[in-house]
């Protein structure tokens, strides 16, 4: 925003000149008035003097006529009272002085003709003395035009006027100068401001660029950490799976060994699935399956597991609220969150310590009732710097391979998705308290937790199932599983192929992947609803975005990676079992 200081200054020169001219005009008018008054006064004075001369002439006529000088002098002396009359002379017919009066010596000539012309400040009145139409003499009267005091006053007023005008002009000049100087200063300041503004903008841009670069760098760093953490964990898990599978492939494996290694593969895969679930929870791509839960019951159920997980050196103490409200959360995520916090607590107490698990009433935001689930450890605590970053994904203080940096991140994601909150209070050396706040569900009833028993799945099933998956291996895996369960299976690798098959053949159920090139699983399901109404459809996906966005249309969903039990359960629900 460049300002133009010249705009302020441009009119600045003419104004003082105009004001000066105005002041001079005022002075001129003042002086004019004074001199006009003066002229009037002079004229009046002249008239006055003439009248006085006339009066004198009349009053001394007889005295002159009869040569009565004392009487004439008396008349003349009467003028003495007027200090402005300087001299008066009565002259006879022959021009000789008959009687007279003078205020100052030598101002009264002896002969009438010797009267000098009146000076600048004088009025000379000459009047004839006439008796019966005959001129018998002359009166000369010299009067001061104005008293000195009056003159001084007049010049004083003029001087005062000039002084005032000079003062006005000076004041104007000074004021104008000040104004110009302040204008200049203002202009300079405005310029400096605009310079500073431009510089600031450049800096802001630079900062934005730097921030962008920093974000990019952080992203890269995060990616590096992710790679380090996840790859390590996965490699471990894969090593177990690979090794176990290798052993199982050997021909001379006895039954006990086979079961042990198969179990190892199952467990390890479960852990791997949990790891990816954590990743998805972190990126909030995993839909929660919230249930109404009694928090105290959950903690009690987990105490034994926690004891075992945390080892002998960590004492686990629970302090549970008397009347907890029910909460609504995804039980699996809740368990994961509890485990994550507990493991962090254990890692903070390498020399052993105490973990206190507390439940209690709390509130969220504006008096929204909630349950607080607090984990207080007696560990090393978290430094202030790190405290601000604990929820950052992939942030970890643990050695590479010891942690993924996703633990608290999962806790945060879970709490946020459940409408709750997480707080971490910690001081270095004094332990850490992690508090998870979960909103109360005041209406729901706790669902009886289904104890998933290892049901024998050897129950014989029958029916035709169409498996749709664009991935050959996954499709084949599903086919094998379903064949194991006793179903007859046909496989399609795209939606359109599946639609064709469904129209030409009869199926009892369609098991389709959601995310496929071309026709998606959801589109296929809709098409099948129109083509073959009543045909049960089960959706499967490892990537819930599509389902989350469009909804499953009320259709059951089996999330990848799925286990045999989950698949069986979904199919059993969809297909009335023919026992």
């Amino acid at each position, binding site marked *: 925003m460049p300002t133009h200081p010249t705009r302020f200054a441009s009119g600045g020169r003419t104004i003082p000149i105009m004001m000066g001219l105005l002041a001079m005009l005022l002075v001129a008018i003042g002086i004019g008035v004074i001199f006009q008054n003066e002229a009037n006064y002079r004229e009046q004075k002249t008239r006055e003097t003439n009248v006085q001369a006339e009066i004198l002439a009349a009053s001394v006529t007889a005295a002159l*006529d009869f040569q009565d000088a004392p009487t004439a002098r008396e008349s003349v002396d009467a003028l003495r009272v007027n200090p402005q009359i300087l001299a008066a002379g009565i002259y006879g017919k022959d021009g000789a002085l008959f009687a007279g009066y003078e205020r100052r010596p030598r101002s009264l000539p002896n002969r009438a003709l010797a009267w000098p012309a009146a000076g600048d400040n004088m009025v000379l009145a000459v009047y004839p003395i006439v008796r019966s139409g005959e001129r018998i003499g002359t009166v000369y009267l010299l009067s001061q035009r104005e008293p000195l005091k009056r003159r001084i006053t007049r010049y004083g007023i003029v001087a005062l006027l000039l002084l005032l005008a000079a003062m006005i002009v000076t004041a104007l000049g000074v004021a104008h100068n000040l104004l110009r100087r302040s204008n200049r200063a203002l202009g300079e300041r405005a310029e400096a401001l605009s310079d500073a503004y431009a510089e600031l903008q450049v800096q802001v841009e630079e900062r934005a660029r730097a921030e962008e670069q920093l974000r990019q760098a952080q992203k890269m760093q995060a990616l590096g950490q992710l790679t380090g953490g996840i790859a390590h964990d996965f490699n471990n898990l894969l090593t177990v799976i690979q090794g176990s599978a290798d052993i199982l492939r050997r021909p001379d494996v006895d039954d006990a060994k086979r079961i042990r290694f198969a179990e190892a593969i199952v467990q390890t895969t479960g852990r791997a699935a949990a790891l990816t679930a954590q990743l998805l929870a972190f990126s909030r791509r995993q839909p929660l399956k919230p249930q109404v839960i009694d928090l105290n019951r959950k903690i009690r159920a987990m105490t034994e597991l926690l004891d075992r997980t945390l080892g002998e050196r960590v004492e686990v103490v629970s302090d549970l609220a008397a009347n907890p409200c029910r909460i609504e959360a995804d039980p699996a995520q809740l368990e994961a969150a509890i485990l994550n916090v507990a493991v962090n607590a254990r890692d903070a107490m390498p020399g052993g310590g105490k973990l206190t698990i507390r439940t209690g009433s709390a509130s969220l935001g504006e008096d929204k009732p909630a349950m607080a689930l607090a984990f207080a450890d007696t560990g090393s605590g978290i430094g202030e710097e790190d405290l601000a970053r604990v929820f950052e994904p992939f942030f970890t203080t643990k050695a590479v391979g010891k942690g993924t940096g996703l633990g608290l991140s999962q806790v945060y994601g879970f709490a946020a998705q459940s409408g709750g909150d997480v707080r971490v209070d910690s001081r270095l050396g004094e332990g850490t308290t992690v508090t998870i706040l979960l909103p109360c569900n005041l209406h729901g009833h706790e669902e009886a937790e289904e104890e998933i028993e290892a049901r024998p799945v050897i129950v014989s099933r029958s029916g035709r199932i169409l498996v749709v998956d664009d991935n050959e291996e996954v499709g084949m895996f599903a086919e094998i599983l379903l064949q194991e369960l006793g179903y007859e299976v046909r496989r399609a690798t795209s939606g359109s192929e599946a639609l064709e098959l469904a129209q030409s053949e009869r199926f009892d159920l369609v098991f389709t992947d959601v995310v496929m090139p071309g026709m998606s699983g959801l589109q296929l399901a809709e098409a099948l609803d129109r083509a073959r109404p009543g045909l049960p459809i089960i959706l499967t996906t490892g990537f819930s975005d599509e389902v989350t966005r469009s909804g499953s249309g009320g259709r059951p969903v089996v999330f990848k990676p799925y286990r045999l039990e989950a698949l069986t359960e979904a199919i059993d629900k969809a297909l009335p079992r023919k026992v």
Partner: protein
Amino acid sequence: MARALPLIAARLLRGLFAASLLALSGPAPSQPSEAAVKAAFLGKFPAYVGWPAESRPAAGEPIILCLIGGDPFGKLIDDAVRGQQIDRHPIQVKRIPRPDDGAGCALAFVAGASTIEAMKGKPVLTVTDSRNSAQRGMIHFVVDQGRVRFHIDQAAAVRSRLAINSRLLALALTVKKD
């Protein structure tokens, strides 16, 4: 200061000189005789006197100055009135022995044994002189401090329906009123 002193002295001298001039200018420069002054006065009185309408001279007619019972002036009075014009009236001097209505006197100088009684109540300005008459006319000459002055009897003038100008009254030594 040293230069101012002679300046002041010069001014003083100048002042004295002017004062002496002023003093000299008071009396007439050339001293005329007492009779001449009185004669001149007699020629000037008519200018300061108003007569009733019926006794005013017609246009161009002279104002008649009568010398009754004697002439103390002789040629002096003739000189004094010669060329004298009072509102375009010349003055004519008549010498008569006694008051005479037919003479048409506007003013009368009464000298010697003659009496002013006869003119009482008539519009005639009577003038007498203390040197040669004990009786007093409306104007009565005296010599005061060496100067010719006069008394005025305004009451008598009023009785004779004459109006004497106040300027003349101002010159009189005394003015007699009722």
